[in-house]
């Protein structure tokens, strides 16, 4: 008649199912989407993270002297969707499993990732290009590492030179 009585009795026998947290650490699955983690070594300042961020949690500002960019991710605006990490081409942004983000109201605005990313320099002419740290070269520049370190202009010139060389060789051999 009372189907719930059975469950109640079972509850009494089985004992509490309460997690020990907060007296013991809580179980966190490795897939958990916690706060974003930023590796400045891998960032190429492409801005795709900012482009896909619906919450406007990411800002990039060029420094006055043009030597780099200030990268900011404000955790109190981030909605933990992980789109930035999904679209980041170099894996500079990842979602950690850290959810211990509780803080007091006084720290409201300081709860952020702040990092200065210097621009890279063209190996030939020294013009400012996207950052070229070793981590980035290893990740996306391995096809032609030398050319990867050039600015678009020098890169173009180098390609043209190569093409010219290729075209030129047979011409010299057949006078």
């Amino acid at each position, binding site marked *: *008649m*009372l*189907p*719930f009585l059975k*469950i*109640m009795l079972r509850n009494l026998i089985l004992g509490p*199912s309460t997690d020990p947290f907060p007296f013991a650490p809580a179980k966190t*699955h490795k*897939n*958990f*989407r916690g706060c974003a983690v930023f590796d400045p070594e891998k960032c190429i300042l492409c801005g795709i993270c900012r*482009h*896909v*961020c*619906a*919450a406007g949690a990411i800002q990039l500002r060029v420094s006055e002297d043009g030597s780099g960019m200030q990268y900011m991710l404000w955790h109190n605006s981030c*909605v*933990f*969707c*992980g*789109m930035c990490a*999904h*679209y980041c081409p170099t894996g500079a942004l990842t*979602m950690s499993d850290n959810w211990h983000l509780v803080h007091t109201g006084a720290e409201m605005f300081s709860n952020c990732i702040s990092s200065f990313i210097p621009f890279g320099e063209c190996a030939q002419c020294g013009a400012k290009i996207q950052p070229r740290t070793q981590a980035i070269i290893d990740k996306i520049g391995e096809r032609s590492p030398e050319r990867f370190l050039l600015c678009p202009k020098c890169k173009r010139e180098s390609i043209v030179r190569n093409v010219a060389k290729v075209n030129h060789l047979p011409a010299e051999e057949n006078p």
Partner: protein
Amino acid sequence: MTSTTYTLPVGPLHVALEEPMYFDIQVEGETVRSVELAAGHVHRGMEALAMQRNYFQNVTLTERVCSLCSNSHPCTYCMAVENLSGILVPQRAQYLRVIADEVKRIASHLFNVGIMAHLTGFDSLFMHAMEIREIMQDAKEGVYGNRMNLGQCIISGCRRDIDDSTGPFLLGQLELLKPQLDELYGVFERDPLIRTRTRGIGLLSFEAAKRHAVVGPVARASGVAYDVRRKAPYAVYPDLDFEVQTDTKGDVHSRALLRLREAVESVKIIKQCLRQMPEGPINIKAIPPIPPGEAVARSEAPRGELFYYLRSDGKDTPQRLKWRVPTYMNWEALQDMLANCQVADIALIVNSIDPCISCTER
């Protein structure tokens, strides 16, 4: 109005209501004479926001329309974008989307029936139902990384694959869930208190259901066998075997039981998906630009039919993105259901349409 009639304001911040909504109820003794619904407390202007955000950002934005059906929204939005631009979603991604949808459906339905128990004051049963829901919450956290907003859908596919570690984990959670779900159904079906409190109240006849064009479990409990998954199939639903649940009583009790039966069907669907899922990519890397034009997409969210209309002018933000959520249709039918009920039943009846105000008001 007689002198015994007085106005009882319910809400907007009322404990029985999960969300801010407002009724002015004319009460005579304990009987409701008329109900005036006032809406707009959760209106965040999301359609205007959607017109300012680009197509990528809108995936996340639509997910935040409502966290109880937070997979249906981005999924239907992506379907609209894909319909417009002709992107073909890989087969595996279609399966993954269905799995995410059904996982959310189970959790959402369990939450609703749990709240129903809570509203009858049966807190032990509420806790029991919510404990069962925790199995699904754990599954969501383990597979997708968040307990509410899965972040699974993107334009052209899905983000997280179900691999050798998460697949068996999900299956294990389902095995854990199934017997408990069946037992819970028995409790809700037979418990005398639940029956006394919920049978015969909040009645919606077949005709009234047609007239108000209600959707989802509310419609199905009144005998309108409309399920988008069958009527206008999307993703891989045509390849899946499941039954559309219907009932004819159209009261609060039958709606709750119908939701539990649907949850059981969902378990079945997920298991089939895990079995049948083909290998392959889960999304397409290169997305073509979205052409100008218009497209619609529909899906069956936990609360009923969800509809998206997208209009593009070829820029990277939509010209117009409009969505119609199930509660939007069911809400007006409350006028019929609440007529002449008791004050004690208001919350129960409102809860029986599984209202999602944040969906409705956007």
